[in-house]
Structure formats: structure tokens, C-alpha cells
């Protein structure tokens, strides 16, 4: 995020594009609600009526899979109606003309049938965004989990560039990063193309710095994104590029990757699968070796929260017998493989990393402790450097210090609906549970609030057509697999579009999702695939299946289910 979470409530306008704060980050949604209370305008773009849409001035309820067409049209209106910040464009940006060539073609009238939004609403939204200052854009997986994700992110940034909404308080564009340390994992270089601090592995000078620091030559070949692993195990185009070992540390690809059937097949076939985690999870059933590590609360370190905030977290309880801290396990394996790695504590690791990353260098443990946390970049260790609340002040990080415009044509998602699979499936988060659910699934209260098989949101018109009642169990199928779910009859989703959350084992929507990837980010198209619904005549059988199958899966995870009574009649 270019801005800080605390800035959200000071925005004059929030463009809430493909982001559902209420379910992903209730405390960030709090800021959006406070902004609204303080008079901010809100434009919400989402195929469903999410919480932000409910309180928005304008809700563009677009058809799924048409993001770029809409953003191009919004840019078109800002350009044709001359609502731009000409001075900012002249002084602070490049490639504006090439950008205009593309968006010229996307008039609201052309785009309206694609997005199913009236031209007037597109014009109204564009004008509101362009003329209300300061304006910020918040986006989430509704943008990223598409085949054309990176293009939409760049074109959204174009909107901010056109209107000078950068480098000032409460402006900019922000992907609200999902998990507690997903920003941190990127910061630390757990990416196939970047060292820590977003330093590219193909930059010779940078690579030499790391080679000198780590004392070994380093490869400059961009590595594999994890979404390519199933293909590289099962059907490598080039046998020499086949993956034979998969070291899964703190993840559950067998639950949260798309097309789980393919993932499970790959895990079965892969020669060596290592799982290092705190809980047995679905991938663990395919692991050749399992390494138990300490849980949150049993070790310390630094997390990066969604707006680049480094924050210290602390050890509070001793871990159970036989469990080791993650970095200790990895160091021991490394040493046993001939590359000695030894640290006494996390501060040593953190300081080693800081010396290699100029933009993080100033974030000492002392400073994090004293201030409660700093948003990077924070370059000087001096206490006066309290980090950076918002980015791009004065200039952009490109070599010429300018923001670069970028535009391209919209293309539809890969797997369109047809007569055989007539419904669009959109997937997302459950507010009361978290990701693979190995933590919240073990919390009795959160489990009582919501449990298997989870819900599938279906519009009342579709419910009527399929003869479904609220609460019925139903079977959903795609080209890749099937699962059961419980019908939530709601007009918050449009006719022809259904929505599921991905936390569930029985209602495992990732049995259905399409692994089609964005060519640049390699993120799968979770938000759009085509499915069909099959009503279940024998609801008693279905209710029984949910209970017994859930018990069987828990038993396969080593849970003693003997005490549980017989299935529901």
C-alpha cells in the first residue's frame, strides 16, 4: 500500500475496487466506515453487494471478469472531460500519449454492455473520483486473482497518475495485503525474482552484494512461482526442468491452491515432499517427512503488516516438547547439507538482513520497540527517521523519478460460462475463519459461528429456477471437480453468479477453481470460473454425508473422533 491504514479515514474519496475489507480486514473496513462518517465519498466496484457497496455513494456492480474494460472507460471519461491534473502529468509522468491511444477506444457506451453498467454511472463515478480530493484507491483479490490482474493494477494506478493522486496524504493506490506477514514474506525476498528488499536477482551488482554477504555464487535464473509446481511435477515440457522436491513451509497448497485435484496428484507423484508447519494440514497427507515448528506465541520476530509496517511480535509461552523454531530447523538442514548457517536469535538474522537492504536499514529492533513499529522505507538507524507513511513523495521510484503510464486492451477471463456450466463462480474469504483454517478451525467459538460445509451465495432468481431453498445442500461442479455446499439465498450476488469462501474441506471451492494464471504475476483466476449446480433430492443423505465425511477427514488428520455420536438422521 502506498498509503498508511491510519490515513484511510482522512481520504476525501475512496475507490474501493475489488476489495472486501469487511471479510478480509474488519479493522481496515473500520477505517473506511469512519472515513464515510467523516464525509468521505465512496465508490465501490464489486460484482456483489459487499459491505463497502452498502455504504457507497456509487456502487458499480459490474459483471465478473470485466475489470479492465471498466477501468479503461473510467480513464476515458477523465481524459475526454478534461478532469486531469495537467501539471502533475507534465512534470511527473511519462508515456501518457501511448496510454491515451488505448483508452480512447473504451467509451462508456462501448463498455456498458460488457460490464452491465450504464454509461451514466460510469461517467458519474469517473467524475466523482477525478474531482474529489484527496482520493485513494484500495484494491484486493478482486483485482489480483484474475488472468488480467497486473494490467488492471497498472491501469488503476494510471487513474491516480491522471488526477495527481500520488505523493500526498490520503492518496495513492493500495493492495490491502491479506495475511499477517504476506507483506513481510515479500519484503524478505521469498520471491522467485527478488532478493530481500525487492532487489532483483538479475541485477549483477545486487547479486554480487549477496554473493559476497553469503559467501557463495548465486544463480541469476528467475525461479518458479508456486502455481507452476503442479505442472512441473506432472507434465514438465522439458524433463530436465521437472520438480522432484517440494519443501512446503507454513503453507497448505492442498487446500488453498486452485484445482486441488491436480495439486494432490502432483504431491503424490513428487519424489520428496517436506512439510514444516505447526498443525497437520491437508498437504501433510502427501508429505514424506513432517517437521513440527513453533507456533505464533512461542517464538518472536518481526511481521510486516499490510501497509509496510514492521512490527515486533513476542514469545509468550514455551513451545511443547519436540518442537523447534522454524529458522533453527532450516539452519540445521542447511548446515547438514554443507552450507553452515547458525544464528542465536532473530535479532542477528534481522540485523544481517538490514545490512543488505538499504530501504529497511533504519528499522532496528530498538526503534521498533520504542515506536511500536515503523513503515518502511526507513533508511537511517537514527531515531529521527520514523519511516515513511506514504510513498512517492516528490518523485517515483523509477530511475527517472517519474510515474509511467501503461494501458492495454481488455480480454475476457479464460473459462467463460456456457450452457453446460452456466454460472460464474467467485471465491473469497470468510470473516470468522482464516485461510486454511488450521488455527480458527481449532477455535470452538469461531467454529460454532460457522462450520462445514460453508455457504454458496445464490441469487433468489437462480434459487427459484433450480428449485432451491435457503439452507439446502447442493452439489457444485466445474470441469475440474465437485464439492457440496449450503445454499444462502441472497440478492447480494447477481443472477448467474455464485460466491463461495475457500476455508472449507467439504465445501472445498478450490476443487472447482481454474488454475489459469496471470502471465506476469502467475496468480490464479480464483475470482472467475464456470460451474453448474445439481440439486440433491435426498437432503437427509447429504446432511449425513457432510457429517460423516467431515469426521472421516478429521480422523485422517489424526483427530480422535471415537467419542462423537452417530451421524445425523
Amino acid at each position, binding site marked *: 500500500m502506498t498509503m498508511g491504514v491510519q490515513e484511510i479515514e482522512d481520504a476525501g474519496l475512496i475507490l474501493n475496487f475489488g476489495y472486501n475489507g469487511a471479510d478480509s480486514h474488519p479493522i481496515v473496513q473500520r477505517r473506511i466506515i469512519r472515513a464515510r462518517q467523516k464525509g468521505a465519498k465512496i465508490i465501490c466496484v464489486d460484482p456483489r453487494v459487499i459491505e463497502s457497496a452498502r455504504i457507497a455513494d456509487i456502487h458499480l456492480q459490474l459483471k465478473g471478469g470485466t475489470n479492465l474494460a471498466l477501468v479503461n472507460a473510467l480513464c476515458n471519461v477523465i481524459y475526454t472531460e478534461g478532469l486531469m491534473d495537467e501539471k502533475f502529468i507534465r512534470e511527473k509522468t511519462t508515456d501518457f500519449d501511448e496510454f491515451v491511444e488505448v483508452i480512447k477506444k473504451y467509451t462508456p457506451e462501448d463498455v456498458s454492455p460488457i460490464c452491465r453498467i450504464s454509461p451514466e454511472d460510469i461517467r458519474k463515478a469517473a467524475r466523482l473520483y477525478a474531482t474529489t480530493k484527496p482520493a485513494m484507491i484500495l484494491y484486493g483479490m478482486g483485482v489480483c486473482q484474475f488472468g488480467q490482474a497486473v494490467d488492471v493494477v497498472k491501469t488503476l494506478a494510471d487513474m491516480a497518475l491522471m488526477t495527481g493522486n500520488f505523493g500526498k496524504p490520503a492518496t495513492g493506490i493500495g493492495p490491502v495485503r491479506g495475511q499477517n506477514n504476506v507483506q513481510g514474506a515479500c519484503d524478505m525476498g521469498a520471491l522467485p525474482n527478488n532478493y530481500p528488499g525487492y532487489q532483483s536477482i538479475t541485477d549483477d551488482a545486487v547479486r554480487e552484494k549477496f554473493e559476497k554477504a553469503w559467501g557463495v555464487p548465486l544463480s541469476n535464473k528467475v525461479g518458479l512461482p508456486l502455481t507452476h509446481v503442479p505442472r512441473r511435477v506432472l507434465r514438465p515440457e522439458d524433463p530436465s526442468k521437472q520438480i522432484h522436491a517440494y519443501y512446503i513451509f507454513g503453507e497448505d497448497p492442498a487446500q488453498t491452491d486452485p484445482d486441488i485435484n491436480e495439486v494432490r496428484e502432483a504431491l503424490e507423484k513428487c519424489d520428496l515432499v517436506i512439510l514444516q508447519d505447526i498443525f497437520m494440514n491437508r498437504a501433510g497427507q502427501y508429505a514424506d517427512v513432517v517437521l513440527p515448528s513453533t507456533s505464533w506465541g512461542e517464538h518472536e520476530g518481526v511481521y510486516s503488516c499490510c501497509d509496510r509496517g514492521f512490527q515486533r511480535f513476542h514469545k509468550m509461552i514455551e513451545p511443547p516438547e519436540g518442537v523447534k523454531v522454524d529458522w533453527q530447523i532450516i539452519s540445521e538442514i542447511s548446515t547438514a547439507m554443507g552450507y553452515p548457517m547458525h544464528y542465536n536469535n532473530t535479532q542477528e538474522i534481522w540485523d544481517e538482513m538490514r545490512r543488505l537492504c538499504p530501504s529497511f536499514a533504519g528499522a532496528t529492533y530498538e526503534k521498533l520497540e520504542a515506536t511500536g513499529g515503523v513503515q518502511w522505507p526507513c533508511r537511517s538507524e537514527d531515531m529521527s527517521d520514523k519511516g515513511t507513511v506514504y510513498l512517492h513523495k516528490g518523485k517515483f521510484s523509477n530511475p527517472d523519478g517519474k510515474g509511467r503510464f501503461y494501458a492495454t486492451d481488455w480480454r475476457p477471463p479464460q473459462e467463460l460460462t456456457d450452457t453446460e456450466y452456466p454460472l460464474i463462480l467467485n471465491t473469497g474469504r470468510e470473516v470468522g475463519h482464516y485461510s486454511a483454517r488450521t488455527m480458527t478451525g481449532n477455535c470452538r467459538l469461531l467454529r460454532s459461528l460457522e462450520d462445514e460445509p460453508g455457504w454458496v451465495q445464490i441469487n433468489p432468481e437462480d434459487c427459484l429456477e433450480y428449485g432451491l431453498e*435457503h*439452507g*439446502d445442500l447442493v452439489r457444485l461442479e466445474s470441469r475440474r471437480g465437485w464439492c457440496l455446499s*449450503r445454499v444462502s439465498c441472497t440478492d447480494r450476488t447477481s443472477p448467474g453468479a455464485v460466491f463461495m469462501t475457500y476455508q472449507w474441506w467439504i465445501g472445498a471451492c478450490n476443487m472447482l477453481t481454474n488454475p489459469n494464471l496471470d502471465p506476469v504475476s502467475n496468480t490464479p483466476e480464483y475470482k472467475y470460473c464456470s460451474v453448474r449446480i445439481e440439486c440433491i433430492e435426498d*437432503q*437427509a443423505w447429504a*446432511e449425513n454425508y457432510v457429517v460423516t465425511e467431515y469426521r472421516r477427514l478429521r480422523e485422517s488428520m489424526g483427530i480422535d473422533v471415537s467419542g462423537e455420536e452417530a451421524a*445425523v438422521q
Partner: protein
Amino acid sequence: MAKQLGAFVVGDSDKCTGCKACELACFTVHNQKSNGVGRTVGTVSVPVMPRLFLVKGETFSVPVQCKHCEDAPCLNACTKKAISRVDNQVIIDEKKCMGCKDCMMACPFGVIMLAQVYDRGKVLRQTTGEAVKGAFKCDLCAGREAGPACVEVCPHQALRYVDPVEERKEKMRRAAETLAITKTL
């Protein structure tokens, strides 16, 4: 989803005129097969015993009948286990009843009565000759296609078949909409 709570019939004293059509319908429907009670005159061969009871006060009149309680005192009290739950509705198996009257005493609504049991117009006799008596109450016309006869026959629609879970959802939705109006405070 499986039905969670028992349904029941409730009267609206504003609409009820005390005409007792409901009582007659209830008696007729429960004695058609067993005692040949038809719709025309002359087929009433047994005493009229309805399972809902019209009550008239100075300022009100409304029938009262079983609520099919979720923690039913009659079911809990019946040592013979003649009262059980069928699809969440509390049903008395009149063949098992010994006539001990515990359920009558337990029911706070007073809607369980004891009466002679008739078959094909004649009272059933015990081995020693006394009449067989059994407890009986509203069974929501279990198995009757059109549902409770009293609700169907009431000329003023004063009786309503209540599915408490569904009705509650509707009432909560309306209450939520009210909160959108009163949010200014």
C-alpha cells in the same frame, strides 16, 4: 435445512368470533376414518371431542391448543413414554396411553383432555368392561395433505399455522429495516 423447532397453531382473538367451526372441523377430521363421521347430518356417531378449545371471556374469544413445546412437560411427565416427538411435533400415541392423567396435570396450557376412545362408532371396552379412555391433544393434523383443518376452515382466518423459525426471520428483517430508519438517534 432440517426443521429445527416444532410448528404450532395460534389464534388471533381480534379476528375470532367464537363460532367453533374450528372445533367441529378438528373433531370431524380426526373421526372420519375411525368413526365414519362425515360432512352431512346424521353421521356424528360419537361425542364431539375437538383437540383445540374455544375460550370465551368478557373481552376476548380465541381457541387454545397445543404449542408442541421444545421441552414438553407432557412428554417429560409421561412415564409410559406414550408421548414422543415426530418430525419435531409432540404426538400422543393414544393406543399406549393408560389414562394416568400426568400429561393433563403437566400441561400449563390445559390443552390435553382425557376422553373415551371410540372405534366404528362404539366405545372401546377394557377386558373388565370399563370404557377405554385416552389422553389426546392437537397433533397438527399430522399426515393431512392440506395441514391443520382448523386453520383451513376458520371463516375469519383467525388461526395461523406458525413455523416459528421462518416467521422469526421475516420479523428480524423488518426490525433491521426499522433500525435503518432510527439510526439517526
